[in-house]
C-alpha cells in the first residue's frame, strides 16, 4: 500500500539535503524514513510538534488519530492548529493535516477522525511501523499499549501535565511495555480532575519533539544500541531532565508476558474507572 523505493527524488534530495549530510541519517536513513508509516494518536499538545517534525524530517506516511475539535484553550500549546480553525470549530485531524500540508506536501497523511476504541484500534493501527502515543488519558494509554503489543509495533509514549513530562519507548527490543511498568491503573481519585490540572504550553512541545526523535531512532535502527530507559522532565527539577534505567520486559506481564491473560482488547474505561470521554476537558490537558 505504500511505495518502497530505494532512491530519493530530486525534490527529496533538495528538501532533506541537510540530513543527507549526516552519518546518522544519510541516504539510507532518509529512504527508511520516507518508506515508513507512523501513527500519531492524539493531535494535541504532544501530537502537534511530533507530527510537524516527523513530516518535516521526511516520514513518508503519517496517520493522525483524534476525534476532537479545536478549542481556544488548546492554542497555547497545540501549535499545529490555528485561531481560524478554532473559530470554525474544525476537526483536529483536519486542522493538523492542513498544517502538515503547508509544511511538507510530500508527506502522505491519513486522518482517522474517530475515538480510538477497543473495537477499532487494531484495524486503525495495523500496518504502521511505529505508533506515537500522544493521547491524554489513562484508558487510551492502556488501549494503545495493548494494541501495539498485539500487533508487534514499537510504541513511543509521551505525556505532559502541569510542568512535567515523561517519555518512554515501549514494546521494543526486549524492553518493557506500559503494563510491565504499570500493571494496575491508578485509582481514579488520584488522577487530577480536569479543572485542577493545567499545562505549561511548551512542556508538551519539548516532549513531542523528543517523541519525534525517538521515532527517527527506531526507524533508522539507532535505538537498538540503547538499554530501556524513561526520560523524566520537570520544570521544577534541576537539571530538568533525568534519564532512568528501566526494567526489561516482565515475564509475568498480563499482555506481553510469557503467559498473557490479556489476549484481546478489553474494556479500558472499566479497567481504569474512567474512559476517554468521561471528562471532555481532559482532552485539553
Amino acid at each position: 500500500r505504500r511505495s518502497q523505493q530505494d532512491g530519493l527524488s530530486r525534490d527529496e534530495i533538495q528538501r532533506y539535503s541537510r540530513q543527507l549530510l549526516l552519518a546518522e541519517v544519510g541516504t539510507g536513513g532518509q529512504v527508511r524514513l520516507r518508506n515508513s508509516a507512523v501513527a500519531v494518536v492524539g493531535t494535541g499538545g504532544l501530537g502537534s510538534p511530533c507530527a510537524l517534525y516527523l513530516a518535516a524530517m521526511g516520514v513518508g506516511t503519517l496517520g493522525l488519530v483524534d476525534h476532537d475539535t479545536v478549542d481556544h484553550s488548546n492554542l497555547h500549546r497545540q501549535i499545529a492548529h490555528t485561531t481560524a480553525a478554532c473559530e470554525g470549530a474544525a476537526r483536529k485531524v483536519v486542522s493538523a493535516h492542513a498544517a502538515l500540508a503547508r509544511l511538507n506536501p510530500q508527506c502522505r497523511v491519513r486522518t482517522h477522525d474517530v475515538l480510538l476504541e477497543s473495537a477499532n484500534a487494531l484495524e486503525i493501527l495495523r500496518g504502521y511501523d511505529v505508533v506515537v502515543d500522544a493521547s491524554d488519558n489513562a484508558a487510551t494509554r492502556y488501549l494503545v499499549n495493548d494494541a501495539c503489543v498485539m500487533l508487534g509495533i514499537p510504541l513511543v509514549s509521551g505525556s505532559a501535565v502541569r510542568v512535567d513530562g515523561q517519555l518512554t519507548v515501549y514494546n521494543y527490543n526486549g524492553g518493557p511495555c506500559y503494563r510491565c511498568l504499570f500493571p494496575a491503573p491508578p485509582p481514579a481519585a488520584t488522577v487530577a480532575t480536569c479543572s485542577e490540572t493545567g499545562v505549561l504550553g511548551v512542556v508538551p512541545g519539548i516532549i513531542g519533539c523528543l517523541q519525534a526523535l525517538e521515532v527517527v531512532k527506531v526507524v533508522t535502527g539507532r535505538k537498538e544500541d540503547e538499554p530501556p530507559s524513561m526520560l523524566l522532565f520537570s520544570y521544577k527539577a534541576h537539571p530538568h531532565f533525568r534519564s532512568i534505567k528501566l526494567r526489561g520486559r516482565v515475564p509475568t506481564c498480563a499482555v506481553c508476558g510469557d503467559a498473557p491473560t490479556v489476549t484481546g482488547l478489553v474494556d479500558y474505561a472499566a479497567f481504569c474507572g474512567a474512559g476517554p470521554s468521561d471528562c471532555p476537558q481532559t482532552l485539553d490537558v
Partner: protein
Amino acid sequence: MADTGAGDEQLKVTVEFGGGLDMFVKKERLQMVDGAKKAIVRMARQTGGKGTTIRRLIEHIGEDYLKASTDLFCTGSTLRPGILVIINDADWEITDDGMDKYDYKLQDEDEIVFVSTLHGG
C-alpha cells in the same frame, strides 16, 4: 529536620517527588537544593536489628511528610499504583533478584525519586 540524632547511627537519603507528587508533601519538608525542591531524610541505619528498607522509608514519609489523605501516595508501606520508584537513576525493579523490591536496604546518600505516571498530553 525533625529526625536528627547521632550521626553514625543515621543514614541520609535525598528524596524527590515528581509527576505532581510534591503537591501532597508538606511544604516545610522540602528544601531548595541546587535549584530543585528535595527532602533530606535522616533515618536510623538499622530498624529492628536489620538494615533500614525502602518499605520503612515509605512508611516514614506516610507518617511525617504528607499533608493529608496519604492514600494518594501510599497505604501503610504499599505505594498506590502508578508510582515509579527510582533509586539512583534506576527503576527499583532492576535491583530485584527475586527479592521483594520493598526490601531494598537504603544506603547513605541514596537518591530516591517517587514519580507519578502522567496521562495527559
